[in-house]
């Protein structure tokens, strides 16, 4: 810090972690400094709220004594600080020890709490994988493992910080509900609904600065996909961070006379088989996810198509990240590279229909 009159708010462009803790406590620079940021791909995100994770849980915890929040030295990145400020007695920072965090949360859950254990999704799902299975899912405890900055949203941080395998890995764990969150209002809805859900959950979040998909907090039901747009030429089943660009792509395609239905399959497991059957009715089906194509949403839909017998002659493609470790680059450039931005998704759709 060089200027004491005006604290520096040097911010990591990806995690938005700043070098002055005062900023995050709201005593210097306050929330404004967080909101007034540009996204890593250069677009102005000043209108997009930062993570509502801690704030929403703090609101819920005002009326629910079961809620606790844990993190592994990432309270700033995931805004657990908003919870810690209001409910310090129910906040636990375990330091950089993700495995311990998840099992501590399981112990709390065994004693009647509903703990939300949050860290980067790469560390939650890959480093903590066995703890999720053995300590959360196997005992069927209401732990909510929150993996944020999922997919390749950490961009040039590299493969160690990417989470493209989490859906494929966690989908194969019994008793685990896997949910992808698409925007702030969706996150609020998921957090609220999770309080009534039995058993363990993995909640996959983006960078917490996701463009708006839901203008209001939606009513959601885990295991029930949401049709956001109707269409007759093509159905796109997408999830989490890809919902917004898919809706944009559908607009582009509509202008070309291609009618596209879009479904937010927020729950990867259990999968909404009825939605897959309905979507297949358009005769062409595309899945879009910010994950390795192996064993994620697309694979789950393929399984449903074949086993359900409603694949028929449906043209089908699983769109996602190919089976490789991604190059170095900012998130926006990576999305463009893999055709996971709106123009790219539109291209993939055109190829499927051609």
């Amino acid at each position, binding site marked *: 810090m060089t200027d004491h009159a005006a604290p520096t708010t040097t911010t990591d462009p990806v995690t938005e972690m700043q070098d002055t803790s005062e900023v995050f406590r709201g005593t210097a620079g306050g929330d404004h400094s967080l909101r007034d940021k540009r996204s890593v791909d250069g677009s102005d995100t000043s209108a997009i709220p930062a993570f509502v994770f801690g704030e929403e849980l703090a609101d819920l915890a005002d009326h629910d*004594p079961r809620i*606790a929040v844990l993190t592994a030295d990432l309270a700033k990145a995931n805004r657990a600080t908003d919870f810690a400020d209001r409910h310090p*007695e*129910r906040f*636990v920072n*375990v*330091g950089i*020890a993700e*495995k*311990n965090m998840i*099992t*501590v*949360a*399981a*112990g*709390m*859950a*065994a*004693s*009647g*709490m509903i*703990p939300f254990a949050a860290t980067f999704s790469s560390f939650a799902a890959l480093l903590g994988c*066995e*703890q999720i299975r*053995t*300590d959360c899912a*196997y*005992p*069927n405890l209401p732990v909510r493992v929150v993996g944020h900055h999922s997919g390749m949203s950490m961009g040039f941080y590299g493969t160690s910080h990417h989470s493209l395998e989490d859906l494929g890995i966690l989908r194969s764990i019994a008793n685990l509900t896997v949910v992808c969150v698409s925007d702030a209002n969706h996150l609020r809805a998921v957090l609220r609904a999770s309080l009534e859900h039995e058993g363990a959950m993995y909640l996959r979040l983006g960078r917490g600065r996701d463009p708006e998909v839901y203008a209001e907090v939606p009513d959601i039901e885990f295991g029930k996909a949401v049709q956001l747009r109707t269409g007759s030429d093509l159905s796109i089943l997408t999830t989490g961070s890809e919902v917004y660009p898919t809706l944009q792509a559908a607009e582009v395609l509509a202008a070309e006379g291609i009618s596209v239905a879009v479904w937010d399959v927020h729950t990867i497991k259990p999968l909404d088989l009825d939605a897959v059957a309905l979507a297949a009715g358009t005769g062409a089906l595309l899945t879009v996810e910010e994950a390795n194509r192996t064993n994620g949403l697309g694979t789950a839909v393929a399984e449903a198509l074949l086993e359900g017998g409603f694949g028929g002659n449906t043209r089908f493609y699983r769109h996602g990240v190919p089976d490789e470790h991604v190059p170095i680059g900012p998130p926006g450039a990576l999305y463009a590279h893999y055709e996971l931005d709106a123009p790219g998704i539109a291209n993939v759709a055109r190829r499927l229909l051609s």
Partner: protein
Amino acid sequence: MTDPSNRPPIPRRGTPERTALAETLTDRARFMRTETVRLSRIAGAGHYSASFSAAELIVSLYYGAMRIDPTRPRWADRDRFVLSKGHAAIGLYPLLGDLGYFDPALLDDFTKMGSAFGDHPDMNKVLGCDFSAGSLGHGLSASLGIALAGRMQGSDHRTYCMVGDGELAEGQIWEAAMAAGHHKAGNLVAIVDRNQLCIDGFTDDVMTVEPLTDRFTSFGWDVRRIDGHDLDAILDTLSDMGRDPVGTPRVIIADTIKGRGVERMELSTHWHVGNLVGQDYDDVMAELEAGLSPKASR
């Protein structure tokens, strides 16, 4: 039996009550060992020696120290016991049945298809089991979570966690140890069953875990080191554990002998898992019924 939730404090050494308690514990430790041998024969294999090393410690908890009520296995204010070295569950199950958590006759189907009782304990199948176990290194974290939840909920329950000495090579143990010290889990008591052996040999040869007193002390724990087969030492130590939800976590380093009670098994690497049959079974049962020899065989 009387309601254990109203269990009196551990009686002082030298009193008739203490003598009576020690006799009960001696008998229950013998029962834990003979049941381990019996259940192993049902399964065709069993973790004898890791159960034997922990016998005096576990019976002292369940029949002497813990605030429990077997008629209310999910009672919120009960003391908890997390058996992080879950492979010793074969010795714990008979005690839970004996205490009244379930019909002991259920153990006759130990490990058979559909049984609630496997080699490692499942908290959703075994009443009285406070946390599932099997994958080593997890239990201390789970115990810390239970302890912190107790603090959040305003309960004064105490959480005991037994870890093996070989298990201390797991990194997560030290993540939990560091966090327990940092978060001042005064309602947490760890017990290290320092039985000297892991599967491949002596811990000193496979992976050095000492100096344990220094290691735990440096992580912010209050350390007691005792003979883990000496009931008087165990009871004296357990009678001095706090319930303060904010304080220094405590660890009891219990020096034990893996396989204690059966000469051929004591400090032998051949009996981590085994199966006694025929005359060997009868001989070992007779040896156990006769009680512990005053000194270990080696």
